[in-house]
C-alpha cells in the first residue's frame, strides 16, 4: 500500500460515502477548502473598507470623515492577512516565490502576487503614511526613548510641518486615493476573475463573477467598518457620530441593492438560459447548499439586513435603537458575505463536472486546512488592528493644540 496520510484517507473515505450519483473518481477530494473561502472574504473586506474611505477623500462625503482613518487601518489589518490563507493552502508553501520569479502570463492566478503587492505597497501604505505624517512627526516630538525612535522611523525621519508640506500631504493622499479606487476594484474584481474564468466549472464560469465579487466586497467592507466603529464605541464608552453612522448605513443600503440585483441577475440568467448544467446546479442548491445559500446567504445575510436598513431610513427610530439595528445588520451582512464566499468556492466543488452527481465536503477541525486555522486567520486582523490603533491612534490629532511651526 502506498502510504497517504491517515487523516486524508479518513476524510476522503468519509466524503466518498456521502457522494450522490456518479462523479469522476478524482473528484472525491475537495481541492480548495475552507482557507480558500477565507481568502476572498478577507480580500473583499480590504477592497470594501478602502472604497468607503475613498468616499471621504475623492467624493468629499464629509459625514464619513470620522471613520476615514478607521477604514484605512481596517483595510491594512486585513490586507496583511490576505495572503496567508493562500500561502498555507499550497502543497509547497516554500515555493510560493516562484509566482514572482517565473509568473505564467496566461494564468489568471499568476498576477495575484503583483496585484497584492501593488495594492499594499503602492496604495495602502502610501496613503496611510501621507494621512498620518503630520501626526507621526508630532508624536515623535512628544515621545521619548524607544517610541521616539519608532515614530521617527515611521515618519521616515521627516520633520517638515510647514503649511506647504501639509498641503502637499493632502494633495498626495488625494492623488493616491484616486489611483486607489481602480486598484481596489482590480484587487477584488481580479479575485472574481480567478473563479469566473474557469470554463470547466459552470457554477463559477460567469462574466458577472468579478463584478458580483466586487459589489459583495464593498458590502462586506462597509459592514466591517460599521461593525468595528460601533464595537469600539461600546468598548470605549464613547458617543457615536450618528450622522456618520446614518451615512454609512445609506451607502451600505445602496451597495446591498446593487449586489442583490447583480446576484439575482446571475441566477435568473442561468435559469432562463437553462444550459446543460442547469439540472445538476439545481440539485446542488437543493441538496447541498440550501441552508448556506437560501437560508444564510439570501434570507439572513441579505434580505433581512436589507429590510432592517430600509426600515431605519423610513421610520424615525431613536438613536439607541438605530445603533442596535445597524450593529445587527452589519453582523448579518458579514455572515451573509462569508456564506456567499463559501457557496461559490465550496459549492463549485460539490457537483461533478460529469453533471451526474454531487460530492461532499467534510471540514477538518484541526490541522492546516481546518476550521481552527480559518478562525485564527479571521481573528488575526483584529489583533493587528488593536496594535495599529495603539501605534497610530486615529483620533490623536483631535486633542492636539495647534503647534507653532519652529
Amino acid at each position, binding site marked *: *500500500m*502506498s*502510504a*497517504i*496520510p491517515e487523516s*486524508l*484517507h479518513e476524510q*476522503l473515505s468519509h466524503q*466518498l460515502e456521502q457522494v450522490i450519483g*456518479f*462523479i*469522476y*473518481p*478524482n*473528484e*472525491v*477530494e475537495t*481541492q*480548495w477548502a475552507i482557507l480558500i473561502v477565507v481568502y476572498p472574504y478577507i480580500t473583499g473586506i480590504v477592497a470594501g473598507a478602502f472604497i468607503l474611505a475613498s468616499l471621504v477623500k475623492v467624493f468629499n462625503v464629509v459625514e464619513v470623515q470620522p471613520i476615514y482613518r478607521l477604514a484605512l487601518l481596517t483595510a491594512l489589518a486585513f490586507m496583511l492577512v490576505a495572503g496567508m490563507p*493562500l500561502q498555507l*493552502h*499550497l*502543497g*509547497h508553501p516554500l*515555493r*510560493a516565490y*516562484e*509566482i514572482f*520569479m*517565473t*509568473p*505564467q502570463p*496566461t*494564468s*489568471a*492566478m*499568476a498576477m*495575484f502576487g503583483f496585484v497584492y503587492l501593488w495594492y499594499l505597497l503602492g496604495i495602502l501604505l502610501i496613503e496611510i503614511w501621507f494621512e498620518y505624517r503630520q501626526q507621526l512627526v508630532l508624536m515623535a516630538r512628544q515621545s521619548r526613548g524607544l517610541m521616539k525612535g519608532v515614530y521617527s522611523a515611521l515618519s521616515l525621519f521627516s520633520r517638515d510641518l510647514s503649511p506647504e508640506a501639509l498641503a502637499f500631504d493632502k494633495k498626495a493622499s488625494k492623488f493616491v486615493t484616486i489611483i486607489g479606487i481602480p486598484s481596489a476594484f482590480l484587487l477584488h474584481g481580479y479575485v472574481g476573475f*480567478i473563479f469566473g*474564468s*474557469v*470554463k*470547466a*466549472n459552470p457554477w463559477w464560469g460567469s462574466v458577472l463573477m468579478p463584478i458580483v465579487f466586487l459589489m459583495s466586497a464593498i458590502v462586506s467592507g462597509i459592514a466591517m467598518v460599521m461593525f468595528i466603529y460601533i464595537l469600539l464605541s461600546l468598548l470605549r464608552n464613547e458617543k457615536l457620530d450618528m450622522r456618520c453612522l446614518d451615512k454609512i448605513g445609506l451607502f451600505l443600503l445602496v451597495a446591498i441593492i446593487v449586489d442583490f440585483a447583480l446576484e439575482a441577475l446571475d441566477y435568473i440568467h442561468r435559469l432562463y438560459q437553462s444550459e446543460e448544467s442547469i439540472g445538476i446546479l439545481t440539485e446542488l442548491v437543493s441538496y447541498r447548499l440550501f441552508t448556506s445559500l437560501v437560508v444564510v446567504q439570501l434570507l439572513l445575510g441579505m434580505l433581512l439586513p436589507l429590510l432592517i436598513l430600509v426600515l431605519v431610513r423610513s421610520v424615525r427610530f431613536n438613536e439607541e435603537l438605530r445603533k442596535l439595528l445597524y450593529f445587527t445588520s452589519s453582523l448579518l451582512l458579514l455572515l451573509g458575505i462569508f456564506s456567499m464566499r463559501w457557496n461559490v468556492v465550496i459549492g463549485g*466543488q460539490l457537483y*461533478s*463536472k*460529469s*453533471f*451526474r452527481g454531487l460530492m461532499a465536503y467534510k471540514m477538518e477541525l484541526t490541522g492546516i486546512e481546518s476550521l481552527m486555522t480559518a478562525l485564527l486567520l479571521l481573528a488575526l486582523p483584529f489583533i493587528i488592528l488593536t496594535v495599529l490603533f495603539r501605534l497610530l491612534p486615529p483620533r490623536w490629532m483631535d486633542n492636539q493644540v495647534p503647534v507653532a511651526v519652529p
Partner: protein
Amino acid sequence: MNKRDFLKDAILFFPAAATLQALAKDAQGAAEPAETPAGYDATKHWYGMGIDVDKCIGCNRCVEACKVENDVPEEPFFFRTWIERYQIHANGETTVECISTRAAPPEQAEPEDPTVVRTFFVPKLCNQCAHPPCVQVCPVGATFQTQDGVVLVDAERCIGCRYCIQACPYGARYLNPKTRTADKCTFCYHRITEGLLPACVEVCPTEARIFGDLKGRADRLVRFHRVNPISVLKPDLNTEPKVLYAKLDGEVR
C-alpha cells in the same frame, strides 16, 4: 573610465549577471523539461490515443498497470486512468458507475437487470488537449505542453495551488499526496519517447486503446481516425482533445 569606476562596475556586474543568468535558467525550465533519450526529436511527433468503446470489456487491467507503472497512490481517490460503466435503461435513463474504485472485482456475476437495454464501458484518461486549460491557468508554468503534444507536470516546480485541477473539465488531475504536487496521465512519457507503448495500451487484452502519432503517415491511430466515426469529450469547451473515441454514445461526458 578610470580604474576606480571600472572596479565599481565590475563588482556590480558579476553578481548581477550571475543572478540574471540563474533567473533566466529558472524561467526557461519549462521549455526543455522532460528527459528524453538521445536522438529523440519531439518536433517530429504529435501523440494521441484512440479508444474503441465497443472493445472495452471493463477488466481494469489498464488502471492497475497505470498505477504500478507510474507510482499512482493505490487508494481509490487518485487515478490517471479509470473505467466508467454506462447502463442505458428501457425508460431512457442512464446510470453510470466508476468500476475502477471498487475494492475488488465482484466474485459472482451481478444478477442481470431486466430494465437495462444496453451497457458499455468507457476508459477515461487525460485528453492531452491541444488547447489545454490546465496549462493556461498554472501560475508558475509548472504544467506545460511538450512539442510532441503531451501535457506534463514539472513536480520540481509545481507549488501545489491546485488551480489546474479546477480548470480540467475531465477530472483527469489530482494532487499526489506523496509529492504534494499536481499529477496526471503522461501517456507514459518515459516509455513512449523510448519507442514503447503506454502501460495501459500495452496490457489491454482487447486492443481497445490505440496509441499513436498523429503526424505519422501510416500510423495505426491515423488509420483508426480515418475509418471510425470519432468523437471527443466536451467538444463545446474547445479544448481539442487528442484522445479520440470511436462510436461513443452521446450520454458520455
